């Protein structure tokens, strides 16, 4: 009985995949290597041949630092050259090297207008042969995101969009729908506590806000290591909780 049902379901899934038109071009996924995150994503990781959006939270909506480093860590784990399109050249490359992205692999395309960034991204995605295409943009209209998504699907190149706004209030734009496959928000959290005074390994709140054929989730992770990998933070979500726990233990 169950075997028959499984067969029917798998047949239906196959037919749906055929209707979606990209069954033959599935180009695999890039796993995070963290079981909890990978299970939340259909296919077990970030799909190649798709657009993924990243934005910062709080002040990060303007500087986009955590989002950019998270994207750099993902790009570092792909294979091949990386095209990084931007309008504001304030990226400090030594930090990206610390996330495992070698400077020889990254080609920057600096444009004066947002529109040109999207054009370069589309060109890079449809070229094929690149490991990843990264773009830093303010606005990502539906039409533009669909064009990027289609270009990425065609060649199997991963497209990573870092959204950063001019002002923090403009970040409500992140609620607007786009054609991207996943949408993430990376917010900074207080760093891990060290036994001595000092700044420990940075931690992020990684929110999976939208994923096609999947459910939203959020994770507290430790920021990219030297190979671009993130790890789940074993500690509680924020230090306030931790302090509380410590206090209660004293009282007990």
């Amino acid at each position, binding site marked *: 009985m169950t075997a028959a049902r499984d067969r029917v379901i798998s047949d239906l899934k196959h037919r749906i995949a055929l209707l979606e038109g990209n069954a033959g071009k599935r180009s695999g996924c890039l796993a995070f290597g963290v079981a909890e995150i990978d299970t939340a994503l259909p296919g077990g990781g970030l799909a190649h041949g798709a657009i993924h959006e990243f934005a910062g939270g*709080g*002040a990060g909506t303007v*500087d*986009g*630092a*955590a989002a*950019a*480093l*998270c994207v*750099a860590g993902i790009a570092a784990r792909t*294979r*091949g*050259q990386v*095209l990084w399109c931007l309008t504001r050249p*304030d*990226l*400090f*490359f*030594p*930090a*990206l*090297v*610390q996330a495992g992205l*070698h*400077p*020889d692999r*990254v*080609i*920057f*395309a*600096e*444009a*004066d207008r947002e529109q*040109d960034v999207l*054009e*370069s991204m589309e*060109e*890079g995605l449809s*070229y*094929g*042969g*690149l490991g990843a295409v990264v773009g830093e943009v303010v606005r990502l209209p539906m039409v533009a995101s669909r064009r990027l998504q289609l270009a990425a699907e065609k060649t199997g190149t991963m497209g990573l969009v870092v959204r950063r706004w001019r002002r923090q209030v403009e970040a409500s734009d992140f609620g607007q729908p786009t054609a991207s496959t996943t949408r993430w928000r*990376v*917010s*900074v*959290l*207080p*760093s891990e506590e060290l036994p001595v*005074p*000092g*700044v*420990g390994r*940075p*931690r*992020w709140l990684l929110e999976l806000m939208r994923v096609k054929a999947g459910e939203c989730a959020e994770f507290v992770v430790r*920021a*990219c290591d030297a190979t671009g990998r993130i790890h789940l933070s074993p500690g509680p979500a924020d230090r306030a909780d931790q302090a509380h726990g410590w206090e209660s233990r004293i009282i007990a």
Partner: protein
Amino acid sequence: MDGRAELSPERPLVTVARSGSKRWIAAADAKARKAGIRVGMPAAKAQAMVSGLQFVDADPMADAAALERIALWALAHYSPIVAVDGTDGIVMDTEGADHLQGGEELMLSGIVNRFHARGLTARVTIADSWGAAHAVARADGRKTVIVPKGEIARFVEHLPLSSLRLPSDIVASLRTLGFRTIGELSATPRAPLTLRFGPEIGRRLDEIHGRLAEPIDPIRPADVIEVSRSFAEPIGAPETIDKYVTRLVAALCQALERQGLGVRRTDLIVHRVDNSIQAIRAGTAKPARDIAWLTKLFRDRTEKIEPGFGIEKLSLVAVMTEPLGETQKASSLIEEEVADIAPLIDIIGNRGQRVYRIVPVASDVPERSVARIAAMAEKTGAAWTLHWPRPVRLLARPELIEVIALLPDHPPVSVTWRGKRRRVSQADGPERIFGEWWTRSSEFDAVRDYFVVEDESGERLWIFRSGDGVDLATGSHRWFCHGIFA
């Protein structure tokens, strides 16, 4: 040869042209001009005016040959349409080609610098019309001038009549009549001038203001690879242009293959029926002979072609070529094939965007530790050797912040940046960076102490104190925010 050996740079130098028994000054160096010698002055008068003047016979043939060499060099570097302009200049139409040099301003300063590196002086002007550029370059004292679109009148009105490219006898007669500048002449009714001097003045005035088209007849080196196609009926539709561009690219690639060459610069030259020429230049990051690649570069910009009344001839010229041999591709069985992305870089670069890679520079000062290089430059394999974390975003210039900190080497307790006060919960530092006294003497004592500070919400900033906290000679002891961590 003997005469040249005696020349000394300390004494003024002039060249002398002769015609029959008449000898006059053809060119004078800066010292001679300072002593009052003008071009065109009789040689005997100059000799009488300045003692110790050195004379060299002018060689117009050699001058013309050298000027042509410069024009051919400019053809390969700057623009598809280059011609020799008179006896003392060259003219180029750089529309559609300046993006390869990073824009008009960079192109002009680049030209001047290249001449300067060879010990020559050059004056360069870019304007809407040949006449205006000619006049401003010769009469304006500055080295580079950009005449904005539609502002020719403002730039040329105060220039002398001699820069109008008129025969010298007409200029002399106009001077007699009291005309001094182009502006005065433009404001005079045309009919009496034409009656007296013929149509020449009106034509030159129209040309300088861009009212009359003045096509440049471009020079062509003898051995250049060129394919062209003439049309019995003028064409104009974008699809038709695209079609013939594709065919021309195929023909060019065939010609290149026979000679084992690849192109670095290719020009598409559009001859219109009204005898005007438009050119589109495409540059590639490395020698190319691939039909699809080159076609894409031109097709990207065929909408920029203005057919006007129709195009009667299209030609494709390989201006700059380099040897391109066949190479064996790595077998995918043994090693992973690395995709060649030069075509992609060319497409983006030809759209006027800046395409580059970043390489490390051996410098402790953060803003000097990165440099841009060409995207297709050899891979260096070098990376920064860092023991301390670096911020993801580096502010273009450090921003002044207010802090409360215990001197000399405690991290701040609170930081106020962009009007927001943050209480520091964790901090690391100091990381001391010394000024580079071996390159700049002003940084002999300079010190920066960098701290990583984290506020209660988890935002991490890279801040520094200018100075070591004890000695004011090392810095102002003010605090700055320099970067944002992830």
